[in-house]
Every structure is written in structure tokens, then in C-alpha cells.
């Protein structure tokens, strides 16, 4: 068979799938799946931020638990997202039961999402606070700031850009994990991909992939924009230190697990 012809075929099938309004509406349609995935991603991000950030910021402030932050991110990377999802679904609890608007296997997916969002959040928040230069901390102490004031007025604002980049990485990770949930019949857009592949309908599979990828890029841009907003403290003063910090931040940035 002429491979070029097959290629054109798949692309035209993808195009016709994406332009057919019927595929967007309905309970299993693209819009419903997209909302499902955005809902579960948002919920998981909120939960992970609530659980992970206070802990990591506090540990960073105390200067303890660096070993915890590093190990959490290492373990997170070695455990395959798919394997953890599969284990949660196969277990008696949480199992693959319906979980309100999150759909079948919703609770299992939500737990997996939160667990995989924690490593980048914790590592970055911890590193961000720890990287505040010692001279600045000494100056804060010298001005007579209490421990809480030092944290609230000095460490937190200076750590914010690194913390924000952790949130951004967590978001990327969450979106990827939520997509993989489809492999265990979880909620979200990944279902359009896996259903297409299961039926040998590669047009549908590719269409789902295009939507997932476009939304992923959009989320990344949105998060980058938010991160820039969180950065005004860094902008004004010495650009040298800013560059140094963001460089080490980007090394941490490689830490996230991928899904």
C-alpha cells in the first residue's frame, strides 16, 4: 500500500472528525470530555497546592527536610503514572466506581493526579525558600524581624517565582496524567484517543490527540503568563541574581515526572 496515500487518509479522517459537530456534543463528546478533564485537573491542582505548598514552604523556612523533597521527586519519577493508576483502579478502594462529575474511575484518577502533582510543587517550593541568599536572611534578622515576619516578608516574596514555576510544572504533569487516565477507563479527553485506537479508527485517535496537545500548549502559555505576573519582585533589582536563581530553577524544572 502506498504509505503517502494512507497518511493523507488519516489526516483527512482526522479533519472530518474534528469538523463534525456531532463529535463535539453529547455525553461522550469532545466538549464533555474536555470539561471533565479540566475539572479534574483543576481540583487536583487545588488539592495538591493545599497539601504540598504549606508543608514545603515551612520545611524550606526551617531549612530541614531537603532530603525529603529530593526523595519525593525521585520516587515520583520512577513510578509510572500508568502503573499507579492501574493499581488504584484494581484495588477494592478507591476502585473504578463512579465519582460524581468525575466519572468512572474518577476517585482513583484524582488520587493519582494529586500524588503526581506533589513532587514538582514540593521540590520547587522547598528549593525556592532555601535559595534565598544568607546575607538577606541575616539582614532580616538584624532588622529585628521575627521568624514569621522573615518568612512572610522576605522568604516568601523572594521564593515566589520558583514556587510559581513549580505550580506550572505541576499543571503540565496533571494534564498529562489526566490524559493517561483513559488507559484505565478514567475520565477525560484521553478516552477519545483510546476509543479511537481500540476501534482502529485512527482519525478519531489523532483528533483526540490534537485537542489534548492544543489544550496542553494553551495551559502552558496561560501558566507562563501567570508566572510572569508573580515575578515583579525579581524584575527590578539586580538582574544578575535573577538570572542565577532562574537558572538553578530550570535544573529543578527537569525534576517533574512525565505522563
Amino acid at each position, binding site marked *: 500500500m502506498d504509505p503517502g496515500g494512507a497518511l493523507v487518509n488519516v489526516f483527512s479522517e482526522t479533519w472530518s472528525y474534528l469538523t463534525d459537530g456531532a463529535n463535539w456534543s453529547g455525553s461522550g463528546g469532545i466538549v464533555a470530555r474536555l470539561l471533565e478533564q479540566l475539572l479534574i485537573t483543576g481540583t487536583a491542582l487545588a488539592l495538591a497546592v493545599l497539601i504540598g505548598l504549606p508543608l514545603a514552604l515551612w520545611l524550606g523556612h526551617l531549612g530541614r527536610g531537603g532530603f525529603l523533597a529530593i526523595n519525593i521527586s525521585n520516587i515520583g519519577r520512577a513510578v*509510572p503514572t*500508568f*502503573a499507579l493508576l492501574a493499581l488504584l483502579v484494581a484495588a477494592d478502594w478507591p476502585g473504578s466506581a463512579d465519582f460524581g462529575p468525575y466519572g468512572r474511575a474518577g476517585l482513583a484518577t484524582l488520587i493519582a493526579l494529586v500524588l503526581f502533582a506533589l513532587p514538582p510543587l514540593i521540590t520547587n517550593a522547598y528549593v525556592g525558600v532555601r535559595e534565598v541568599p544568607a546575607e538577606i536572611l541575616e539582614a532580616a534578622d538584624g532588622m529585628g524581624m521575627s521568624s514569621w515576619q522573615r518568612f512572610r516578608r522576605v522568604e516568601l516574596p523572594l521564593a515566589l517565582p520558583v514556587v510559581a514555576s513549580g505550580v506550572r510544572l505541576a499543571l503540565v504533569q496533571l494534564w498529562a496524567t489526566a490524559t493517561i487516565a483513559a488507559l*484505565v477507563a478514567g475520565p477525560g479527553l*484521553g478516552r477519545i484517543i483510546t476509543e479511537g485506537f481500540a476501534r482502529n479508527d485512527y482519525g478519531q*485517535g489523532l483528533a483526540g490527540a490534537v485537542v*489534548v496537545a492544543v489544550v496542553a500548549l494553551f495551559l502552558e502559555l496561560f501558566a507562563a503568563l501567570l508566572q510572569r505576573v508573580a515575578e515583579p519582585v525579581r524584575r527590578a533589582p539586580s538582574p544578575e541574581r535573577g538570572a542565577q536563581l532562574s537558572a538553578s530553577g530550570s535544573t529543578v524544572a527537569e525534576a517533574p515526572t512525565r505522563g
Partner: protein
Amino acid sequence: MSEAPVGVRSMTVTVPTAAGSAAEPSCYSRFVNEWFCWQYVEDRHEEITDALVQHIAITLAALVLGVVLAFPLALLVRRVPKLQSAVLGLSTGLYTIPSLALFPLLVPFTGLSATTVVIGLGLYALTILVRALLDGLASVPDEVREAATGLGHGRARLLLRVELPLALPVAMAGLRVAAVSTVALTTVGTLVAYGGLGNLISHGVQRDFRAELVTAAALCVALAVVLDALLVLLQRVLTPWTRAVPS
């Protein structure tokens, strides 16, 4: 046992005794379905080995592809700094795309094959490695570079003898991250039927086969740990000068 397939769930109470009269039901029979079952590993060791070998082959091929592409790309970016933001931006964007979406995007070009998985994972590894190489090369102190030039090193010799060895620790850290996440991500290749241990996980979920699932997941983690340890060892061998400093 001929009636077992019909109404399996309701029979769970009665059937084990029937099977037990002949022999103990194995720990991975559907009625027991234990999480850990050595019997399963013994009985299916060929299937498990095949999956493991496929997993290792895909992981290594993807890493080699990533390294082979990352080197010239990093050197090019260093030569032409204008390209830096474009290359880094592109790789960030690529890294954002979930693997379950990246594989289908490659399928029209490479079909349902191991190549699809290798290229997809190679691209992810590439994004990590280019960054790590650039970070590593940037970490070489200017004085060292100047000293080497003063000693008469040419561009190529400076790179091979001075810059690359000094960039190695940072670059190897990147390679370790890439290796561990590639091992984990290979499982998603099950979408195109080439997922190594991921195929076992997928089958285990569909059939609610716990022993298969746990064995495959544990092997994945073990593989990641072993690969990481081997890379640490390799780094020690490649950078003997760092051992003089007690850490």
C-alpha cells in the same frame, strides 16, 4: 469448573472448595487474585521476560536517540546563540504534550510500531538532555576556558578535553532524569501495543489480574532504579577526578 465463566462473581463462595478438592487454587486464580504471587512469576516467566526485554530495548533506543540528537543540537545552539530561545521554547512546548497524545500524532508517520514509541520518548529525552548539556557547558568557568586556550588548545580540543569533561556532572544529572522518566513512560506505549511491561499492566487492568499488574509495576520501578545506579557508576568511571574530593 466448566460452569465457572458463567456468573463468576456469584460463584466465588462455592467454587474455591470445588477446585480445592483437586489441588490448592493457585494464588493468581481469579477467585483468589492475590496482589503478590510467586506462582504467577514462575508460570509466566517467559511472557514476563519478553515484556521486560522489550521494555529495556525501547528505553535504551529512546535514550540513545535522545543523546545522539541532543549533542549536535546543544553545540549548534552554543555556536548560534540566537537559536537558543527558539530551541528551548520548542522543547518546552514538546515536553508539555502528554505522551498519550504524542504517540497518536506520530502514528501516521511510523504506524503501530516500536519506532513510534522510541521516537516519542526520544523527543522527550532530547528536551531534557539539550537543556542539561547547555547548563553543563555554561557551568565551565571562563578562566578554565581561557587557560586552555592559552595552552594552545584549538576549538575541538577545548571542547573534547576541557569543556565536555567539566560539563559531565550536570549533563549526567540530566541523563539520569531522562533515563528514569523514560523507563516510566515506556509503559504508555501500550497504546500502540509496544509498551513493554506496560502491556502487562494494561492486560492486568482489563482482566482485573492483580498479580500481573503488581509484578509488572514492581519490575518497572526496579528497572528505573537499576538503570539509575548504572548511570551513577558510569559517571564515577568517567569523572575520576571528582572522587578525590570527599563529599
